[in-house]
């Protein structure tokens, strides 16, 4: 596998999609952080803003970058037929699969690294992290694991679909689908248990009505399920990280480990049986 990794990484450093993703991440980080600095420093602002509020925005978008990069980078192996060269020269299918997984994982981590470094542009105005080093490390570790699960899922799709266009479409739609699903669950969990309506008074004023149970409030088993899914899905983890609401590091990391191992094992088993052309 060492030979395959060497070949894959050598191709990575010359890959246009990779550098486009890295460039986009850099620009995204700079624009987002500078905009955050502007928001935080206008004189009328009534909220206290810190670096933490902006620093983990990448967690929401990295899945899209992973989907795009994995499907383009690995899809080329099929569209150019070069995956054949690896098998003809005696590499095992498991080796080919794992080497591809490793390179997509590292590439996605590097994209995050670009964000994390570029986002430090906000430090002079916003100061350093207020969450403390243990939480910062916890967040970063969680990010590493959910990036692994993203890589595993998109490598699975890219290795089993021989059509590059289909691979790109499936990967992006899957990411968007997971993101929408996680957003809906997150929004459901944000609903207050009790809500009060605003009533207009006879003298033209307004007053708060009596507190009543909120019908949109998610409770019981459904709430437990939503909470679990937000911790389980990489997109859910991304939303919680972006909102600085990570509560259960261990459950998130274990979920990511499961979402890395299961697609990889299934992918290798199916790829070993796949008829390649």
């Amino acid at each position, binding site marked *: 596998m*060492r*030979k*395959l990794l*060497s*070949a894959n990484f*050598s*191709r990575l450093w*010359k890959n*246009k999609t990779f550098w486009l993703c890295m460039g986009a991440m850099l620009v995204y980080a700079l624009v987002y952080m500078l905009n955050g600095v502007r928001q935080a420093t206008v004189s009328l602002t009534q909220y206290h803003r810190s670096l933490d509020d902006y620093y983990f925005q990448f967690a929401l978008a990295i899945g899209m970058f992973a989907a795009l990069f994995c499907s383009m980078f690995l899809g*080329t192996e099929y569209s*150019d*037929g*070069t*995956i*054949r*060269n*690896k*098998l*003809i*020269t*005696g*590499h*095992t299918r498991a080796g080919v699969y794992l080497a591809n997984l490793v390179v997509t994982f590292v590439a996605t981590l590097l994209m995050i690294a670009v964000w994390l470094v570029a986002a430090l542009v906000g430090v002079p105005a916003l100061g350093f992290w207020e969450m403390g080093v243990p939480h910062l490390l916890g967040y970063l570790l969680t990010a590493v694991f959910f990036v692994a699960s993203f890589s595993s899922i998109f490598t699975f799709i890219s290795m089993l679909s021989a059509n590059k266009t289909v691979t790109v479409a499936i990967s992006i739609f899957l990411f968007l689908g997971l993101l929408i699903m996680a957003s809906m669950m997150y929004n459901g969990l944000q609903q207050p248990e009790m809500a009060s309506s605003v009533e207009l008074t006879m003298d033209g004023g307004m007053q708060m009505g009596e507190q009543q149970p909120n019908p949109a409030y998610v409770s019981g088993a459904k709430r437990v399920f939503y909470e679990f899914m937000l911790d389980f899905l990489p997109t859910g983890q991304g939303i919680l990280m972006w909102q600085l609401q990570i509560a259960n590091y261990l459950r998130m990391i274990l979920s990511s480990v499961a979402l890395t191992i299961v697609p990889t094992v299934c992918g290798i088993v199916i790829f070993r*049986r796949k*008829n*390649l*052309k």
Partner: protein
Amino acid sequence: MEYVLRTNALSKSYRNFQALKGVSMNVPQGAIYGFVGKNGAGKTTLIRLICGMQEPTSGEYTLYGRKNTQKEIVKARRRMGAIVETPSIYLDMTAEGNLRQQYRILGLPSFEGIGDLLQLVGLAHTGKKKAKHFSLGMRQRLGIAVALAGDPDLLILDEPANGLDPQGIIEIRELILRLNRERQITVLISSHILDELSKLATHYGFIDNGCMVREISAAELEAACRKCVRMQVSDTKALARVLDGLDIAYKILSSDTADAYAKLNVSQLASLLEKENCELISMQERDESLESYYVSLVGGDKNA
């Protein structure tokens, strides 16, 4: 005879379609093995199996003495290079970049041989031009160069002349001959351009409808396809006596038709037949070719 590749009753099915039906094939060391068959006969399927891109449904093959069911088949595959259908090259890389990539995949310690390989396939001048801007012939030659990285002993080429112009076909033919003669590389080449194949192959395997119809050496094929003169006479018994007297091989086809396998002196033959009271009605020189041999084997149209 030593064989680099042998298949034994190799079969491959895709759902309800059986692409290969118990194909047995023997590729001798040092041969240029022409694998002949119509489109859809099963040539590419067999090549895919040998290259490890697909698993056989039943049967087995042996590559350099290693069975496909053994783990060591992976090591045996390191002794081969192949182009299956289209050249496997990164289109956004240069010729040299593609070879460097293949050298890394093979784990070769240095890139020393790349210049020689590019020279060998006539791509040394391509510089920074990316493969996507190459002509079809250049891509095919780059594909061969990639397949040759690591000095394989067996080269498998699936329809290497497909889509090439006449000059490109000549270049590929000369390259294959050079590799076989100078580097002693065994070549398995599938094609349905029979005329082209006949200029290269030392052995043939004819496949039709997923079955190996016949394996034959070029020498045997030449004997089977030898030039003959078809004659129509009034008495083939008299003709037989004359041809026996001239020590010429012949074959009686009917009461008035026979084939003689030699260049004939027409006036001498006519005079001898006259003495036997036999009339020579017509003579026609027949030039049997690989194509007519193939047609006689598998029947149908002449487009293999």
